[in-house]
């Protein structure tokens, strides 16, 4: 059973959101352990460019494993303020520590997020 930390929020597309998910807030985003496990060994992460705008529910990047490729969705709307540059050299961090060193990008939120799930709801989704 994949780990689902209690203190994070989640999207149905298997991203997690850490931080103040409200207008004016800044959040850190990654993919869940469930998603990382399903992809297998991740060898390439394409995060959205710093300074670009992302829209909740829309594709903003991609993750590639030996087995498959998966699109990365933004769980919130806003402006990308940073991306995890370490993943260029160590994309396996997404598998090893999806909720920590495997974070993917940070967004300054410009619209109130809708439809984010708490840990219990996300856990049910993936049960």
């Amino acid at each position, binding site marked *: 059973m994949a780990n689902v930390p209690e203190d994070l929020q989640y999207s149905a597309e298997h991203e997690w959101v850490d931080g103040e998910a409200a207008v004016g807030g800044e959040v850190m985003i990654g993919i869940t352990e469930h998603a990382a496990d399903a992809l297998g060994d991740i*060898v390439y992460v394409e995060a959205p460019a710093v300074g670009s705008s992302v829209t909740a529910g829309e594709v903003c990047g991609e993750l590639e494993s*030996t087995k498959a490729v998966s699109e990365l969705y933004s769980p919130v709307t806003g402006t990308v303020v940073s991306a995890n540059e370490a993943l260029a050299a160590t994309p396996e961090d997404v598998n090893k520590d999806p909720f920590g060193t495997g974070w993917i990008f940070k967004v300054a939120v410009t619209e109130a997020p809708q439809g984010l799930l708490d840990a219990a709801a996300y856990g049910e989704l993936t049960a």
Partner: protein
Amino acid sequence: MSATRSPLHDEHVALGATLVDFAGWEMPVRYSGDIAEHTAVRTSAGLFDLSHMGEIAVRGADAVGFLEYALVGRMGAVGLGKAKYTMMCAADGGVIDDLVAYRRDFDHFVIVANASNKDVVLAELTARAAGFDVTLEDESAAVALIAVQGPRSEGIVTAMTARDADNIGPLPYYAATNVVLSGDIHAFVARTGYTGEDGFELFVAAADAVDVWRLALAIGGDAIVPCGLSSRDTLRLEAGMPLYGQELTRATTPFDAGLGRVIAFGTEANPRGNFVGRTALEAARDARPTRVLVGLVGDGRRSPRAGYSVTDAAGTPIGEVTSGAPSPTLGRPIGMAYVPLSASEAGTEVLIDVRGRGEPMTVAALPLYRRA
């Protein structure tokens, strides 16, 4: 319909495997990790459960004549205890399945079919058997197939063998022998595989599968790693081996896939009788090929995947990717694709439409990896 379980299902669960539905079977896609499993086969040894593969026994006085009619290869030339890579084609020359045929006796062959095609192959063999003195038996449920692949596989399989262990080492590629494994388990051991490495495939009774699996892990120790379907796919891709449903389909002939050599048309000195697909395959042989299966290698990070377009520099589609992945051994994206003859020469620069962006890749001869 629920998926069929391998006789090794409980072993896979105990090893923490991620199981997926594959051609109606619930099979391990990975245990520890795709890259670690792939690397183990290239550098040491990997253990695979191939129980999903179909095994069809052909017995009878007309076994040779029947298989020479039903399949494209010259089965009468296969020696006792030898194996042959062959195909079943339709009357129009399209590939129904690629197969390995093992000759177990003068009048007894075992045909190993892809899991997804086993029922079709069995039905076609049955239809083609009219008038021949043969019996066909689907042994897929009774037989477990376990593969030990990698440079250390010979030592491991030899050590697993209690009687006639000396026969394992000298066994040539595509040859097989009956041995008795530790625990008095009878096995038909073939030096065959789908990884591009030295390796063995062990046919055992389904009831013995758990004992053989555990024996391989116990003998192999740190040198052997259980491997799932994901690493099996990247291993065969690097080795340039076709996968049915991707490089081979009903719409491709063996010539399209560069495998015309599997068809024996016979010669004047050594003629061969009729076989299903002969007329269409002769025409395909004599026609100028319109497309060629080639390898692809890239310098970027994004990989080609099955179904992606191959385009010229202007972005005009010229072909299609059949398989692709980031190669664990080569450390770069690789693939296989059908391209027109004009773009098939090694070194030709093409673009692959990877989700809307053209990724430059270079055409390369197959296989993309060859063991030292």
